[in-house]
C-alpha cells in the first residue's frame, strides 16, 4: 500500500519534471522553426488561384506521434471525473499539430516549393482509449506543395 503510493508519487514527479521540461524545450524549438519556415506559405484552399504560374507540384506531409506523460495523464483522469477543459492535453495536441505542419513545410522547402495548398490535418489516437496502454496520438499534416516562378511569390 505505502510502497504503491511511493511508486505512484515518484512516477507522478518524474512525469511532471520530464514532461514539463520536454514541453518547454519543444515549444522553444517550434517557435524558432516557425520563424525560419515562415516564408513557406500554407493555404487551406483546394486549388491555387487561376493566375498563379505553377511550375511543379509535390505531395508533402508531416507526421508526428506524441505521447502523454504520467502527470498529464493523471490530471486528465481527474478532469474526466468532473469535466471541463483538458488543459494538459491541449498543449500536447497544440505541439503535435504545429510540429506536423513544420515537418510538412520542411519537406516543401526541400522540394524548393514556397506554397502548400489544400493543407489538411488528421488526428488518430494510437491507443484508442484502451486501458493500460500508452496514451499517444498521431497528427498528420499533408498538402500539395507548389513551385512557382520567382516573380510571383517573393
Amino acid at each position: 500500500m505505502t510502497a504503491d503510493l511511493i511508486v505512484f508519487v515518484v512516477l507522478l514527479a518524474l512525469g511532471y519534471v520530464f514532461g514539463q521540461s520536454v514541453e518547454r524545450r519543444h515549444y522553444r524549438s517550434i517557435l524558432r522553426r516557425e520563424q525560419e519556415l515562415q516564408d513557406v506559405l500554407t493555404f487551406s484552399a483546394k486549388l491555387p488561384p487561376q493566375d498563379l504560374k505553377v511550375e511543379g507540384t509535390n505531395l508533402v506531409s508531416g507526421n508526428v506521434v506524441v505521447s502523454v506523460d504520467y502527470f498529464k495523464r493523471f490530471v486528465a483522469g481527474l478532469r474526466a471525473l468532473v469535466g471541463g477543459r483538458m488543459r494538459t492535453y491541449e498543449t500536447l495536441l497544440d505541439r503535435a499539430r504545429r510540429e506536423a505542419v513544420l515537418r510538412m513545410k520542411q519537406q516543401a522547402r526541400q522540394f524548393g516549393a514556397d506554397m502548400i495548398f489544400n493543407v489538411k490535418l488528421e488526428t488518430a489516437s494510437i491507443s484508442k482509449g484502451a486501458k493500460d496502454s500508452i496514451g499517444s496520438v498521431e497528427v498528420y499534416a499533408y498538402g500539395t506543395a507548389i513551385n512557382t516562378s520567382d516573380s510571383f511569390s517573393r
Partner: protein
Amino acid sequence: MRFENPKIPEGINTSPDHPLKEFVSLLGGVLLVIAIGVGVLSLMAEFLAAGIPFRYETELARYFQNSTTERSEIGDYLQEIADRLARAQSLPADMRINVHYADEPVVNAFATLGGHIVIYRGLIEKMPSENALAMVISHEVAHIKHRDPIIALGRGAVIGIALAALAGISAESIAETVVGKAGLLTALTFSRKQEGQADATALAALVSVYGHAAGVTDVFNLFTDMQNENFVHMPEFLSTHPDPQRRIKSIEQQILDHDWSADKATRPLPQL
C-alpha cells in the same frame, strides 16, 4: 497579388495557467468529494447494518471462519468470564458469545462477526490480573453487543462498492488506482466513537460482575507503555486509537462519576 501567413498569437489554443495549479485544485476537489461521500455512506451503512438480525450475522460469520478451535481449559475459563460479562451487559437472547483461545505469542484480542471473540496467549501473558483480562474481554463483548463488527463490515462493503463504481465510470485507469487506494484506507476497523462506547459498556459490566473497577486502568497503561516501546506492533485493542490517553481519562471519569472503587485487590490469574 502577394500572400502572407501572419504569425499567430500564442496562448489561444493552450492555457497559460500553470499545470500544477490545475493538479492541486482537481486532486483536492476530488479527494474532498470522496471524503464527504465516504462519510455520508458510512453513516448510512452504520445505521442500516445495525438493523441486520444477529442470526444473519452468524450465518455470514461461517464464511469467514476457517478453523474451529478445540476446547481447552483456558478456552473454557475465558468463555466463563465472557458469559458472566455477557449476562451483566444483558445481551439479547439470540446473541451468543464464542470465545476462541489462540495459542500464539501475539498480544492481541478482537471481536468479529457472529459473536466470536479471539484472545491470544500473548495478551493473557501480559495481563497482571483477571480483572484486567476481564476488562479486555468485556470490551470485546461490548463490541458485539453494539453490533460493531457487522457495522464495520457494512461500512467497508458499501464504501468498497461505491468506490469501485466511481472508479469504473472514470475513463482513466490511473484515476482508478487512486480511488482504489482511498478505499483501502477504510478497512474493517472500529471508529473512535465505537471504541469509546465499548469501553463505557465494558466498564459498567465489569463493575457489576466484580463489584469494583480495580485493574481496569492497568490494561490501558500496559498498552500505552507497549505502544511507546514499539509503536509498529500495536494491539488491535488500541490500534484505532491515536489517543489512548484520552481514553484512559474518560474511563477514569466514568469511575469517578459512579463512585466505583478502583483500589480494591485484583483477582490473580489462575495457573493454566
